[in-house]
């Protein structure tokens, strides 16, 4: 036992006796050190150098950037009635490569989208990566399509513009494209105010997709601002309806009506024909699209005569009762001859306006140097655009005074040889309604009326011409049909031949521009009918009744007190059954 005990100790086991060389443990140690150094290095690299990428990767697991949509501003009329509003719709799109539908699914989808199965198949077999199947469908329909869970078919949210006024407001408002950007009219003119700016923000989402934390707002969304127009919904409808009726009655090519508030220069109505429905623009033609009152010019004809008379009165050359010899109804200037439609004898200045004598107007005009007349027309806003900010607005033609020949000055005194648009015509009549001054027109609602206007004529002149304008709508004038029962109104007819290829053809533009009520003017109404071709073509027969209809309705709608003598009304009350029509005279 003792022998055993003594013999084997662990250390002295000959088998285990270290015969190893000294480098081996050092090598292992070095390996371990190297390994841990590599780990530390890698960790430092990931933490310190490559960290941004990794952090972004990590964040993308829970953080999302959300688009925050912004809506386009509403357009309202002056009372706040909505004229245009954006409402969310969906557009259905597809990735053709992913969209592998069996025939029954295709039929279902085609049925919901209201397209032919063949058409749909054709679209889905396209080579493109992305195609719209149908844009701007109702959200309910899009939800039903989404519920089918078809592969490769998606939808996206968009906005569509709706116009409850339809064709009544079409030309004023214009419209937006599929991308909700203004393309015409107010929509284009006020684009910067109406357009919303979509924002975006970064958020943290939980497993169920709820937003749990707002990390940062990258851009705040900005909803478009609401635009309140100067247009009065009701007057606009009256103008539109009267114009539509007249277009039918007179088989006219086109027409326009403008109603201005004489106190503030606001445009209360602007109607054009032919018109269109902005909610459905499938068969739209350029002809329907034109906002004629602003973008088309015409030779105004006799509606210019009151300005000629006003100039003569203002400079003291004549008084309202000065007699001008208009016999024998024709007059030769240079090599050209001008004439009256109906020959007159000797007329007073007031009668020249009342009877619309070309000779009378020409004689008054020719007593002035061309520069004086040009200055007056320029002051009235002719020859340059009104700068309402409306797209496509034109200024008409007014040649510089130096280039005028006497015959041209004569014809311009009664509105030929120059061109204007209907809005300019209404604008210029402000001088008579506002006692000689002119304020800038506005398409948007004004909170306060403009303080100063530009003075063109003296108040005295303006009042005198206003009296003459009233004579026009009375018996013996050119437009008794323009009279409005219960109110004193006045205006001037215009019947201009149209220039076709440089020659006057037997095509006419009938117009009427008037003011109501005469005692304290509130409204200016301008009417233009292009090529009436149902037998009548005089402004007094074609345009004056529209003026009467629109003015009567507008005055009533605005609550303007009647200023015609009250006696006939009382008479009418006694014999209640038979309405008196012409008591206003």
């Amino acid at each position, binding site marked *: 036992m003792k022998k055993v005990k003594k013999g084997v100790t662990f250390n002295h086991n000959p088998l285990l006796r270290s015969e190893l060389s000294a480098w081996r443990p050092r090598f292992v140690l070095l390996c371990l050190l190297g390994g841990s150094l590599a780990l530390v290095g890698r960790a430092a690299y990931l933490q310190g150098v490559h960290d941004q990428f990794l952090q972004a990767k990590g964040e993308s697991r829970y953080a999302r950037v959300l688009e925050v949509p912004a*809506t386009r501003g509403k357009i309202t009329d002056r009372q706040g009635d909505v004229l245009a509003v954006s*409402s969310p719709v969906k557009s259905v799109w597809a990735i053709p490569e992913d969209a592998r539908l069996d025939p029954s699914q295709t039929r279902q989808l085609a049925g919901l989208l209201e397209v032919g199965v063949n058409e749909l198949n054709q679209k889905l077999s396209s080579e493109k990566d992305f195609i719209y199947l149908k844009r701007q469908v109702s959200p309910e329909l899009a939800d039903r399509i989404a519920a089918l869970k078809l592969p490769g078919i998606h939808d996206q949210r968009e906005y569509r513009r709706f116009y409850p006024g339809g064709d009544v407001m079409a030309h004023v408002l214009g419209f937006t494209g599929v991308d909700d950007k203004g393309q015409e009219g107010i929509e284009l003119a006020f684009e910067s105010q109406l357009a919303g700016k979509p924002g975006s923000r970064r958020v943290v989402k939980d497993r169920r997709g709820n*937003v749990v934390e707002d990390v940062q707002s990258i851009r705040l969304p900005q909803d478009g601002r609401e635009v309140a127009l100067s247009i009065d919904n009701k007057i606009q409808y009256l103008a539109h309806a009267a114009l539509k009726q007249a277009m039918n009655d007179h088989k006219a090519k086109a027409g326009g009506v403008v109603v201005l508030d004489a106190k503030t220069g606001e445009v209360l109505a602007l109607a054009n024909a032919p018109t269109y429905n902005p909610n459905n623009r499938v068969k739209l033609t350029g002809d329907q699209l034109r906002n004629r009152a602003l973008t088309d010019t015409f030779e105004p004809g006799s509606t210019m005569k009151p300005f000629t008379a006003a100039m003569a009165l203002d400079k003291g050359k004549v008084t309202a009762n000065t007699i001008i010899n208009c016999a024998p109804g024709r007059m030769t200037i240079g090599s050209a001859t001008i004439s009256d439609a109906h020959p007159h004898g000797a007329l007073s200045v007031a009668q020249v306006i009342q009877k619309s004598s070309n000779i009378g107007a020409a004689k008054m005009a020719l007593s002035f140097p061309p520069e004086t007349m040009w200055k007056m027309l320029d002051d009235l806003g002719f020859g340059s655009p009104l700068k309402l900010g409306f797209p496509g607005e034109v200024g008409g033609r007014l040649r510089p005074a130096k280039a005028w020949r006497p015959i041209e000055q004569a014809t311009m005194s009664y509105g030929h040889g120059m061109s204007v648009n209907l809005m300019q015509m209404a604008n210029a009549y402000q001088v008579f309604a506002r006692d000689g001054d002119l304020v800038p027109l506005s398409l948007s609602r004004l909170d306060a009326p403009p303080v100063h206007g530009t003075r063109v004529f003296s108040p005295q002149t303006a009042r005198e011409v206003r009296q003459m304008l009233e004579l026009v709508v009375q018996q013996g004038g050119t437009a008794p049909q323009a009279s409005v029962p219960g109110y004193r109104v006045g205006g001037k007819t215009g019947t201009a031949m149209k220039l076709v290829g440089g020659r006057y053809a037997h095509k006419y533009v009938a117009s009427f521009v008037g003011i109501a009520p005469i005692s304290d003017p509130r409204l200016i109404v301008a009417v233009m009918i292009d090529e009436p071709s149902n037998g009548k073509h005089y402004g007094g027969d074609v345009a004056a009744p529209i003026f009467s209809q629109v003015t009567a309705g507008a005055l009533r709608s605005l609550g303007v007190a009647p200023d015609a003598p*009250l006696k006939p009304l009382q008479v009418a009350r006694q014999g209640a059954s038979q*309405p008196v029509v012409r*008591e206003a005279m």
Partner: protein
Amino acid sequence: MARLTGFLVMLVVASSLGVVASQHQARKLYTAVEREQQRSHQLEVEWGQLQLEQSTWAAHARIEKLAREKLAMRPPQSGQIIAIEERP
């Protein structure tokens, strides 16, 4: 000394639990705010649609048609209008 340490440890644990709880609470509230904001947006959209509907029903063309055809109304003739003057 050991007592104080124990007490402080307990405080630390309690406050950290508080942090967790309040963070959770904050997230829950935030989700609620988010939901309400979405609802307000939706209501705004609905308001627009209702205004649109109202404008469509109240279109002058429609009212005139109904008044004329259904109710047999017509604009008053001039003789039927009586103006009442207010004396100051």
